[in-house]
């Protein structure tokens, strides 16, 4: 069915298109993504927001421990060095970006990884074939594999993991074009690319559908969630930074054990009513969080 050694890109050459034509198309797609992301940022003012938020956090850090009259502020506030920040950047890339670490639900994480790497492999292989002006068996395999991963991931997401499907009981066939544009474009791109491949390539209906899907995918960036792909790593990095420097968005740090220092642990153990936990096991298990959040 699927010949992993070739992609239908070869058939475009036979049909009379040059690599230059295809390179132009790819460049236009990339340009659309870049320009539309910038337009989105400017329009929303999100970069200003992020810079302001970062400045506010720095100010809070510089101000030091607050005046605390009940409980105690721990000594967690730390100015991070350049080395610290570099290390955090690496963690962010390795965990949050590369392995979709922000998702706690393991299946949802898997679905995201499949979709993400499928997308990357498929597009990278396409670009390398088109700009290298040659199709090797390896690149072709990567192209096909990427398309399959993207197909599985995006369809699995659509039928099982669309958030409003999970939490709100919304049916899988309830579609609103604008909000579902990104998901549908991914599904469309993978499906039509594989269809194009299986049904002999060429410049027929399948090819037209491929062009339509990719145009919608890359051209819809201004309206779809595509650009969130760029915001998420920044947000993940920021989250690790504030946890490391102790400001942690005003979240409390009091805990029964495993605090910043043994002195902190002692202090918390002796808080009002904490003696009720003196004989309690370290791990009390899960209560409400035991079950998936689908109680309807």
């Amino acid at each position, binding site marked *: 069915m699927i010949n992993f050694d070739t992609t239908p890109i070869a058939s475009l050459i036979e049909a009379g298109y040059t690599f230059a034509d295809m390179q132009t198309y790819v460049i236009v797609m990339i340009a659309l993504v870049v320009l539309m992301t910038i337009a989105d940022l400017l329009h929303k003012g999100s970069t200003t927001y992020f810079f302001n938020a970062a400045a506010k956090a720095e100010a809070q850090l510089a101000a030091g421990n607050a005046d605390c*009259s*009940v409980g105690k502020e721990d000594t967690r506030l730390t100015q991070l060095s350049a080395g610290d920040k570099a290390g955090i950047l690496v963690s962010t890339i390795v965990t949050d970006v590369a392995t979709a670490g922000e998702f706690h639900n393991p299946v949802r994480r898997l679905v995201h990884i499949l979709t993400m790497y499928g997308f990357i492999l498929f597009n990278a292989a396409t670009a390398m074939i088109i700009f290298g002006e040659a199709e090797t068996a390896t690149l072709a395999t990567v192209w096909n594999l990427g398309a399959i991963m993207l197909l599985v991931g995006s369809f699995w997401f659509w039928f099982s993991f669309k958030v409003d499907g999970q939490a*709100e009981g919304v049916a899988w066939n309830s579609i609103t074009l604008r909000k579902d544009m990104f998901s549908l474009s991914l599904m469309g791109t993978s499906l039509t690319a594989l269809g194009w491949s299986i049904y002999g390539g060429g410049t027929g209906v399948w090819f037209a559908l491929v062009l339509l899907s990719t145009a919608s995918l890359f051209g819809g960036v201004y309206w779809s969630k595509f650009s969130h792909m760029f915001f998420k790593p920044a947000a993940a990095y920021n989250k690790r930074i504030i946890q490391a420097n102790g400001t942690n968005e005003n979240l409390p740090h009091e805990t029964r054990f495993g605090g910043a220092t043994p002195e902190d642990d002692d202090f918390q153990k002796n808080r*009002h*009513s904490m003696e009720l936990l003196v004989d309690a096991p370290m791990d009390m298990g899960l*209560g409400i969080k035991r079950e998936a959040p689908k109680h*309807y």
Partner: protein
Amino acid sequence: MKAYKTIVEDNIDILVVGAGLGGTGAAYEARYWGRNKKIVIAEKANINRSGAVAQGLYAINCYMGTRFGENNPEDHVRYARIDLMGMVREDLLFDMARHVDSAVHKFEEWGLPLMKDPKRENAEGLAKGAYMREGKWQIMIHGESYKPIVAEAATKQADKVYNRIMVTHLLMDDAKDNRVAGCVGFNVRTGNYHVFKSKATIVGAGGASNIFKPRSVGEGAGRVWYAPWSSGSAYGLMIDAGAKMTQMENRIVLARFKDGYGPVGAYFLHLHTYTQNGYGEEYESNWFPELEERVGKRYLNTEASHVSARPIPTCLRTSAIISEINAGRGPIHMVTMEAFQDPHLEEVGWENFLGMTVGQAVLWAATDIDPKFINPELTTSEPYVMGSHATGCGAWCSGPADLSPPEYFWGYNRMTSVEGLFGAGDAVGGTPHAFSSGSFTEGRLAAKAACQYIDDGKAEGIVVSDKQIADRKAQIYQPLETYRIGRNEIVAGTVSPSYILPMPGLQRLQKIMDEYCGGVTVSYMTNDKLLNMGMQKMSIMEEDLEKLGAEDIHQLMRAWELKHRHRTSECVFQHTFFRKETRWPGYYYRGDAMKLDDDNWHVLTVSHRDRDTGAYTMQKAPCYHLVNDE
């Protein structure tokens, strides 16, 4: 119109409608007595956090402590009687008080953290190891997870728990008049129609907040004292089923911290804070002599109170605050600066909010109020109609065989006047001061009785016609259809000449109740003329409620909450008009009958709404009191 599925759950033995503290008690106990019975829960939200105990509690306000030699049940009955100016069901109260401790001891066993009294850790005799008392009836707890813990006890026993089901109507037996057959409603997520056919039904669907115009009307309308999701559904469901109600005039007005409505119990009892007017003066003595004259010495005797430490009824304290503010010497402050100097009391003072009413802590953080340096403001709230606090609205229920006099007994404990229909918690009238533990206890009592009702064969031969089910389905989804069709008339927006949306509808109800039934803008004053005018407006509103519109399933839920609130409010009007006296100054005043009238009104009020005509019949029921045997 979108086709919603019909999902039927049949052959239920015990159906629990509403899984708050009352409903969870019922589901839990039902399994003990009904080992092989089918027990099903239908809950509007998520059982793990639903109901008034969602954010937790910092005290259990109903605990006798007989094991520590502390109180007897009759002591609690007398306390509740005094606080409610005599108007209570003493059989039901005694019954609740004699059982409530067993629920509390089980809660502790399950993991609910109860504070211990360090002073009695090594006491002699019975008192050893006693819990930390806040006051005579209240013990202090860390109850942030009170609801999840109790919910698990219920879900473990139930056969099925349906979450996100808005129950709109009770089903009635088509074969035998005045017998309940289950309930119907819809799923707030999927929109599907759900039918529950059951032999016995226990309603624990909560009392009513937001039926009077709240003091804060913007976002702040959510910061009501009693949960905003308490939509009077227990009353709406039961009144519509033809159940008799009692004491629905007995709405409660609370003196609480201003705007946040944070609790004051621990402050008064544990921190020993006290109140002052805006000029730092004591003020109750300005008003008690006049009140004593109006209600009579048996209800307020300031001389005797000092000597005997007899508690002063909640409503009278509230009345003094209202009068002092109206006389221009507000605001009333809680003097906290002294108590908060003690670091332990300061910590408790804040924990009290964080474990029970977080909004108050948020408000103080927002306004830079540290009670160590500022004495915060108090206010009197808008009125609420419910039955487990210092108020006893609810269904007229039978008591237990061994306690109740003939007028109060008709076979099964906590059964309403509709056969097979039981109540628990706020749903039951005449049992104030139950709070969380007492509500759970009432659920337990109702469950045992409901199992007995079934075992006695009283639920045989129930028939629910397809017509009843189909009619209810059409009725339930009507607001969606009304909106869908009516929407075609206008361009956009919420204003339409042919339908009304739930939020504007609620605001109209709140305004009627506020202005005609004694809300905050009229300083809780009403009279016979205003009540009559109000009832007329309510009846016009009922016509308009046939034209409620709902844009989506969430709004459909709000629409039915409004219908339940409206039905509750209508009943409140009837009762308030019927009782021609001012029995609870501070809760409300009858301008045409400002004095307490024991000669004519030392009775409980009982109403019945005819299911077909909607007409109310009002009755006086005797008030029985515990007396010592000679």
